[in-house]
């Protein structure tokens, strides 16, 4: 539906999420009624729309230790070894449900049911850039340092967001993701 709306003058942002699309309009250019009409039209035409091709993106991860401060806790919570947690996390294929939060944070679906883990009771004030984390039945990666309540099990050196350039489309909605463990001693 976004193709019909994206070109419309006065639409400032279109933001898809799990079950919604936020349409941010400029009320100087469009009335709510006009936008509603456009949205209905675009929903009707949605099935005809061709989706951008899904890409498979591999994300290298250093698990545990200083890079994944919650790995041991997650292992204890599930009564598994940290190694098994890594195997489970790295053996699944994820899909980017959408991107948002702060700068290209991918909301990933496909976390193995055995890994579903509640959020931290109190969010951390500082989560390092590149932190690979899980929360509930979701997985994600923090592109920039920020506060956050997800369980951090590893860190990627891959830069998902570059504040200096245009946001590089490292991950887009619909892309598939695999996490690849970086072995000890590898640079």
């Amino acid at each position, binding site marked *: 539906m976004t193709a019909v709306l994206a070109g419309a003058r006065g639409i400032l942002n279109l933001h898809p999420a799990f079950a919604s699309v936020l349409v941010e309009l400029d009320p100087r250019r469009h009335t709510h009624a006009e936008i509603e009409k456009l949205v209905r039209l675009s929903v009707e035409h949605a099935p005809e729309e061709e989706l951008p091709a899904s890409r498979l993106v591999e994300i290298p991860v250093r698990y545990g230790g200083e890079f994944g401060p919650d790995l041991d806790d997650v292992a204890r919570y599930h009564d598994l070894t940290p190694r098994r947690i890594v195997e489970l996390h790295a053996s699944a294929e994820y899909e980017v449900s959408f991107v*948002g939060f702060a700068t290209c944070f991918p909301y990933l679906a496909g976390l193995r049911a055995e890994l579903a883990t509640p959020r931290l009771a109190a969010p951390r004030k500082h989560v390092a850039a590149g932190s690979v984390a899980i929360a509930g039945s979701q997985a994600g990666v923090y592109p920039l340092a920020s506060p956050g309540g997800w369980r951090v099990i590893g860190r990627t050196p891959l830069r998902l967001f570059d504040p200096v350039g245009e946001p590089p489309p490292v991950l887009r909605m619909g892309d598939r993701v695999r996490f690849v463990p970086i072995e000890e001693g590898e640079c």
Partner: protein
Amino acid sequence: MLNQIRVLEGGAQTTVQDLGRFGWAHFGVSASGAADALALRAGNLLVGNAENAAALEMTLVGGAFEFEDDAVIALTGSDFGAWLPLWTPVAVKAGGAIRCGPTRSGARCYLCVRGGLAVPRTMGSASTHLATGVGGRALRRGDLLPIGDAVVRQPRRAAASPPFSRAEALRVTRGPQAEWFGEELYRGTWTVSEESNRMGIRLRGEPIPSPAVHMLTEGVALGAVQAPPDGQPIILFVEHQTTGGYPKPANVISADFWRLGQLRPRDQVAFESVTIEQALGALRAAEEWLYSL
């Protein structure tokens, strides 16, 4: 002499702002832009710029700036104690300086210069997004800001301060989850917390009862009033996160966004519920004033 501004003192938090970058929310990048866009637009119109030209936004304590060549400038927004009148185009001689201090009214003061600031654009905007580093950082002593060519007409001759008060209640329309809430938001007043910033304005007061409903994360908009489980509302501001999972009982109307930009820590605010039609009427009044400049 180059046509540029030299930063003598950065002040508490001075950034380059225009009206923001749009169309990047679905990558998690909110618009940023002037916290009081009404003051930025008015300042630009007064010096004869396109209204989206980049200017300096000062916060709570202003900076000091030297002009290396003759310039025409206007200070708008709150009174930061500079020697020149607010809301008035003023000619400054080469070598002249503007020194601002602590605010004597609201949270933000704008320094608009004829021609605008010619700083590099990121994703189509010169705005600084402090939380992510998009568009740069807060200014420091020694920074140089080239003046550009965003001129569209002659500077205005007369002063023109806005006929709106920053002390009135924040007008809101119903938010996406309004039906989960009662009238608690509208009872009494709220205090602006010290933890407020360009990402969000945190309020303290009698807690709003938290609805026991699980919400899916969804896109969120500027001015959304979020009610987290602790019942202390957060108004999403110009650098807001683009998705959120807290329910939103209300949304501040576009015509009152500028008031958010003028809120200082410890200010008291109240909310007033209005219809979409009333919100559009208020926006029209603000636009009419701007275009009368």
